[in-house]
């Protein structure tokens, strides 16, 4: 006989729960009920605790508190038109101002950002389909007409800072509410790469308050600009209406400036800053260890900069000889130099980084081989080249500690194979005058025949395209000491191509140039990022941008 009381729920309309198994003791049922209650209470308590740390349970963006970033470089000016001066504002403002497209830091592929897709129907036209539901931080809706208005201001070849990227005129028009058409004055194979670097600012700000562009940034990014006290700090706060805002992100970002790497490291180790950004290898192994022992991270990330030796070629009696140039490539122990001064990074045999257009895996590699170098020099000598003519190795003083050391090592390597070498350190100002060949009224033709200069140099290849190196390898290139009309023609030809054909043409061109050691790459520059244990692990980007839209605070 069932003695359970009849509950109102037990109506003929609702099936009755199955009866308890016959003979089950009442004590067991009580324990089961208590266990369920305990589990429920524990779950509630856990949820309450987690929501007190970060507002993630409710799904609201932010909750990570403040993150302080100490950087070696303060932007000079926030005008988006200045973005072309490489990453000087990009690396700080990339969380505020966004571009149409981005580059995947792992694959180097161009990926959607404010544009979801794009097409290149003719060599001079591009069409972008823009993201819906995006607003600028001042409330201006982001669409094709506002994007066009912004790009019209920024894409101005007459703005000094844009000179690095914006060389040709272009028109931007709205072909539909979210369809942006671009018409270029001439075909530009790296246009899409350039668009990864060009930030889009509020057209309302540009139209109504252009004078504020230098001091205040308004974009579509997940963080909005709050203040900038020059010399002191710059503050952003999470723009919670952003399409990128997400739970766990930091609520505010404070940038502070400190140029001394050891002090940056101490700020991280003591918790006075959470992230430190430097250019190149700024921190010693001990400084890295200090951050790690405090629970932080010291991460080295390959950048888009390549360090190399520039060898005078045009009009040279000694360095114009291919045997001598190849001998130098074999004589310089690049692996040892990288071990000693560049954290042991691999030797580079390209001037563009891996994944870039024109990156070659089929060219010469010049492993360290002093015997082969001597043999090549002997051949050059037999052909009448005067090997006793002095070579000067130039390096910039005050540009970190690496260049003088590298120059000394290169000099020792070259002396070891019998070349006559001297060293010359120059200041940044003198370098500006000496290093650029096509500066002002002087051209490559003014290079004296016996100059025989080798410069320790580096170049940013942020467009990830070998054609960007034409500055250093064509007759009229600003830093070029190499002049071969056939090479100039090959660059022009490659730029008329597209896709795989262009890549192949650039690979072949580099292989040819590298056979003559047009440049001797040393390595891909590594940037070091320090962060403390408040910041979840993240992958630093080659362009030095800290991806705060991906970074979460540790809970």
């Amino acid at each position, binding site marked *: 006989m069932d003695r359970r009381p009849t509950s109102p729920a037990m109506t003929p309309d609702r099936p009755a729960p199955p009866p308890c198994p016959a003979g089950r003791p009442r004590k067991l049922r009580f324990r089961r009920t208590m266990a369920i209650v305990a589990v429920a209470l524990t779950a509630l308590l856990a949820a309450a605790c987690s929501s007190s740390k970060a507002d993630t349970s409710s799904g609201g963006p932010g909750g990570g508190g403040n993150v302080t970033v*100490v950087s070696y470089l303060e932007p*000079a000016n926030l005008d988006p038109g200045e973005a072309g001066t490489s990453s000087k504002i990009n690396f700080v403002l990339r969380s505020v101002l966004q571009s149409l497209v981005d580059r995947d830091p792992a694959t180097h592929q161009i990926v959607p950002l404010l544009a979801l897709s794009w097409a290149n129907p003719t060599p001079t036209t591009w069409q972008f389909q823009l993201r819906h539901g995006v607003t600028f931080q001042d409330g201006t809706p982001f669409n094709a007409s506002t994007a066009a208005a912004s790009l019209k201001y920024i894409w101005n070849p007459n703005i000094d800072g844009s000179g690095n990227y914006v060389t040709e005129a272009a028109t931007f028009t709205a072909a539909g509410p979210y369809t942006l058409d671009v018409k270029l004055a001439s075909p530009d194979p790296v246009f899409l790469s350039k668009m990864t670097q060009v930030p889009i600012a509020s057209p309302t700000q540009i139209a109504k308050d252009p004078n504020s562009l230098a001091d205040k940034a308004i974009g579509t990014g997940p963080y909005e600009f709050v203040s900038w006290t020059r010399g002191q700090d710059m503050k952003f706060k999470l723009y919670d209406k952003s399409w990128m805002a997400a739970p766990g992100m930091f609520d505010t970002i404070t940038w502070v400036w400190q*140029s001394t790497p050891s002090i940056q490291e101490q700020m991280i180790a003591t918790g006075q800053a959470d992230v430190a950004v430097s250019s190149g290898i700024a921190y010693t192994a001990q400084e890295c260890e200090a951050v790690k022992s405090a629970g932080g991270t010291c991460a080295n990330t390959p950048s888009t900069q390549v360090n190399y030796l520039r060898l005078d070629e045009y009009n040279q009696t000694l360095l114009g000889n291919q045997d001598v140039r190849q001998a130098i490539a074999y004589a310089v122990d690049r692996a040892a130099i990288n071990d000693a001064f560049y954290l042991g990074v691999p030797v580079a045999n390209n001037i563009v980084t891996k994944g870039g257009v024109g990156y070659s895996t089929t060219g010469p590699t010049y492993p360290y081989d002093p015997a082969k170098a001597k043999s090549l020099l002997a051949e050059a000598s037999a052909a009448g080249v005067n090997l006793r003519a002095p070579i000067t190795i130039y390096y910039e003083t005050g540009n970190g500690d690496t260049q003088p050391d590298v120059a000394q090592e290169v000099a020792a390597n070259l002396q070891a194979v019998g070349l006559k070498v001297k060293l010359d350190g120059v200041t940044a100002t003198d370098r500006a005058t000496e290093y650029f060949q096509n500066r002002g009224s002087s051209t490559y033709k003014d290079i004296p025949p016996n100059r025989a200069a080798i410069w320790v140099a580096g170049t940013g290849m942020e467009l990830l395209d070998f054609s960007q190196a034409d500055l250093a390898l064509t007759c009229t290139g600003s830093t070029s000491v190499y002049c071969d009309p056939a090479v100039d023609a090959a660059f022009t030809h490659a730029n008329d191509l597209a896709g795989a054909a262009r890549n192949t043409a650039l690979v072949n061109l580099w292989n040819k140039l590298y056979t003559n050691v047009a440049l001797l790459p040393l390595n891909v520059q590594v940037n070091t990022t320090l962060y403390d244990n408040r910041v979840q692990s993240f992958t630093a980007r080659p362009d030095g941008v800290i991806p705060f839209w991906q970074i979460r605070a540790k809970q």
Partner: protein
Amino acid sequence: MTWRYLGSRLVAAAGVVIAVAVLIFLVSHVIGDPVTASLPGNPTQAQIEATRQQLGLNHPLSQQFLTFMNGVFHGSFGNSYWQQVPALPLVIRRLPATIYLALAACALIFPIGLTLGLIAAIRPGSIVERLVTILSFAGASLVSFWLALMLIYVFAVRMRWLPISGYGGVNVILPAVTLAILYTGNLAQLTQSSVADQLTRNYVDAARARGFSEVRVLVGHVLRNGLIPVVTVAGAILANLLNGVVIVETVFGWPGVGNLLIQAIQNRDLPLIESCAFATAIIVTVLNLIIDIAYRFINPRVKFG
């Protein structure tokens, strides 16, 4: 007589400022080419010419000089190449930070230096005298960069008492202490020697013979005479601090004129460098003027004219 003296000092000060402006012009326009020195990267000949025209450097030197001096009188050195905004206001915006740090350092240097110097003078051979000697040697021999790093290591990294870098509030303590260690010894030693010298004078014996208390002899007679050379050194110290203590400001990330000057040099920003130099010249000149006038109040027997 006083007004005449004041007038002559003002004229001299104005002369110094003008001379500095002329020197700045000569250094930037005659010794080097401001266009090639300042244009970054690889300008073309057309860009060089355009910049030359924009800066008015295509005009005769005499006309350039007049234009430059006109700018000086109107407080304009042109736009900063680096920041693309007027250069002098950038310097003026950094002055409060430099003044703040200078005053904080002075708040340590002057009371400590004067007190130590005075005690060392009236208690020769005491521990205080030895301390003054040590401080003086330390100030002369310590490198500010090293000292700043050591103070950061001890008080910010090891003890975690103070912040490493930043502006305002407690951030001022470490840079101010760094500067105080560098300058206090110098002031204390000069105070000691000056007061000790005065203590040997006959008028001190005469004052004591008249029954004046030792405090009255010291404060009313000895200090009044002994402080005259000290005021000169104190003025020089203050001028140094207000010039923007380049290394200390840079190490501690202090947003003052010294820090700005380093950035201007790194960016080859000629108008900004000129503005820093000019602002510094004005500060030093005004300070010297104040010190000259202060002489009159410290010791009226100092003759003017």
